[in-house]
């Protein structure tokens, strides 16, 4: 692995104003969708991002893609700052794949137009030149050349996701941000698409940020894993270290909540009390305190990320106290 990170995220923040009232639009607070997130991404690795609905995964993806402006902090791709107005030469290096294979493809365009669209925006190519790029990619994602003349509605969910992947690949990006790319698919089709991601990683040396709320999927694809809760990083570590020694009570609860297709492997479930708190009323201090089975007075003060092992960081006061859980 290269020592220089391909992507650097430093104290990234994004907040949205929350307004009330249709006409007056009174500001009643802010949602800290992404709150002080830092990590590095290295060439050829897959960083899995996991967390529950509303914890800021998609917002983080948008920030990394330069689709929305940062409220604070910075993000650099190969040393250059990522911004909504970054030059095309830079933008082409990072592409995104979305969750919903149904709504993310324009139903009026045929597959050729959908897949070639990024090429139209980025360069002026002849038909032959485009074919030279598109045809091998169609093969790599497992679609026939004949598919190019069809329309999205003629394909199944898994095939549509392949079309989305082909589109993301035509500019030959180095980094691909996948926002829940298999969440809408059946397990059988999910397996096909996950295998495709793995083979593309090998063939093209791709670097992925892979967002999902499914821990078994995250475990399958990731080299490192980042656990988010209410916009903040709770734990980040290599996959091995996280699965061998999850330290944050939220990570532990998340892992114990996964239903497993093996009645023999029944585990001691940690059932969390209460619901995910509204991000508008995020508590001061540790964001997890309202549901944490081990919360204590000290948790009203925000815990910093502390290193607990090589490349393994945890934001929890239990760790500061030296309590081994």
């Amino acid at each position, binding site marked *: 692995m290269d020592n220089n990170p391909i992507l650097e995220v430093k104290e990234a923040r994004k907040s949205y104003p929350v307004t009330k009232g249709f006409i007056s639009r009174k500001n009643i607070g802010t949602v800290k969708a992404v709150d002080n997130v830092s990590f590095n991404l290295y060439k050829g690795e897959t960083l899995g991002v996991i967390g529950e609905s509303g914890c800021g995964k998609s917002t983080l993806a948008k920030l990394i893609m330069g689709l929305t402006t940062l409220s604070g902090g910075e993000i650099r791709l190969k040393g250059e700052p990522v911004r909504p107005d970054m030059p095309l030469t830079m933008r082409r290096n990072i592409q995104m794949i979305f969750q919903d294979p149904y709504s993310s493809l324009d139903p009026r365009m045929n597959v050729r137009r959908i897949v070639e669209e990024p090429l139209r925006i980025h360069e002026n190519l002849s038909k032959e030149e485009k074919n030279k790029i598109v045809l091998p990619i169609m093969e790599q994602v497992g679609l026939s050349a004949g598919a190019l003349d069809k329309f999205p509605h003629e394909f*199944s969910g898994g095939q549509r996701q392949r079309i989305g992947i082909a589109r993301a690949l035509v500019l030959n990006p180095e980094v691909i941000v996948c926002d829940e790319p298999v969440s809408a698919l059946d397990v059988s089709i999910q397996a096909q698409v996950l295998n495709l991601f793995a083979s593309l990683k090998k063939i093209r040396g791709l670097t992925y940020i892979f967002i999902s709320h499914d821990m078994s999927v995250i475990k399958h694809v990731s080299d490192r894993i980042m656990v988010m809760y209410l916009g903040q990083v709770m734990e980040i570590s290599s996959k091995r270290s996280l699965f061998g020694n999850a330290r944050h009570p939220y990570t532990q609860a998340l892992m114990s909540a996964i239903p497993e297709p093996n009645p023999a492997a029944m585990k001691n479930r940690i*059932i969390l009390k*209460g619901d995910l708190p509204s991000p508008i009323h995020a508590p001061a201090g540790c964001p997890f305190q309202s549901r944490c089975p081990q919360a204590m007075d000290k948790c009203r003060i925000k815990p910093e990320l502390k290193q607990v092992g090589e490349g393994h960081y945890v934001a929890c006061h239990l760790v500061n106290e030296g309590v081994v859980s």
Partner: protein
Amino acid sequence: MIAMETILDVQDLQTYYRTGKQVVPAVDGVSFRLAKGEVLGIVGESGSGKSTVVRSIIRLLDKNTTRIENGRVLFRGKDLLKLSGRELRGIRGKSISMVFQNPLSSLNPVYTIGNQIQEAILTHESMSRAKARDRALHLLEQVEIPSPELRLDDYPHQLSGGMQQRVLIAMALACQPEIILADEPTTALDVTIQSQILELLSRIRDERNMSIILITHNMGVIAEMCDRMLVMYGGVVMEEGKCTDVFASPLHPYTLGLLASIPSLEEEKEELYAIPGQVPHFNAPVSSCRFCSRCDQVFTRCREEEPPFIQIGDGRFVRCWLYAQENETNNG
């Protein structure tokens, strides 16, 4: 083990959709029994007919496009498919109630949740409004809604998805049903909230000795919640058995494929098994194994004749030619 009392007996159910000239055999000869106090899981890919099965049981189907072609659904000796609309309404929501996947679309946005639970009670039982409100409050407590007396006056959109699902479960419980039909009740929820809801359902089942049919495409949920399971594909049941048996020794190539395609938390696999292709469209009548276009063990007979539902052991069935006995093969 004591023989358990059968509470619901579904026999050879066939439900077809008609769209234009097309006939979709969504459910094409499904039979099973549900015992008192039992949780029966139905699993299968999208489009395999799971929802159509449970919707047929209480006839929650669009009359214009759907027809129940055949079958019987015996509940307390009565065939639900033969009941008048009025008789059926007396059972639906009272003895048999449903919980759907998307809680927000099952709740009425313009009424408070207290109001909706009271309505559910008063439809089937006569009592004063005050008493119904008390019962509603008690139900919200049972499904672990925090400060229920405040929540009674909330509108659905003021609740989180997990709380909405708990309200739906409270409504389903309002009249002490004997059977709950739960169609993907946790699919839209986060895993930690899913855990809470599944635990809630288990607890209620234990307390009331209720029976539950639980539809999900999540094998993990089946393994944790259910006593027995049906694996559906293309409108038929491919495999049936106790969950412990099916997970320990799956028989049908489809069940094997489904289980192998799930990324495992325990072992590292470089590549996942992927069932090739996708669910095809079926036209009635079907004259081959419905899985033959995707099966990795397919042989000639599979393409010529639909396999019967073959009994392998006690309550254990599989629909696959690999398990046909010699004598059957000779007869065929």
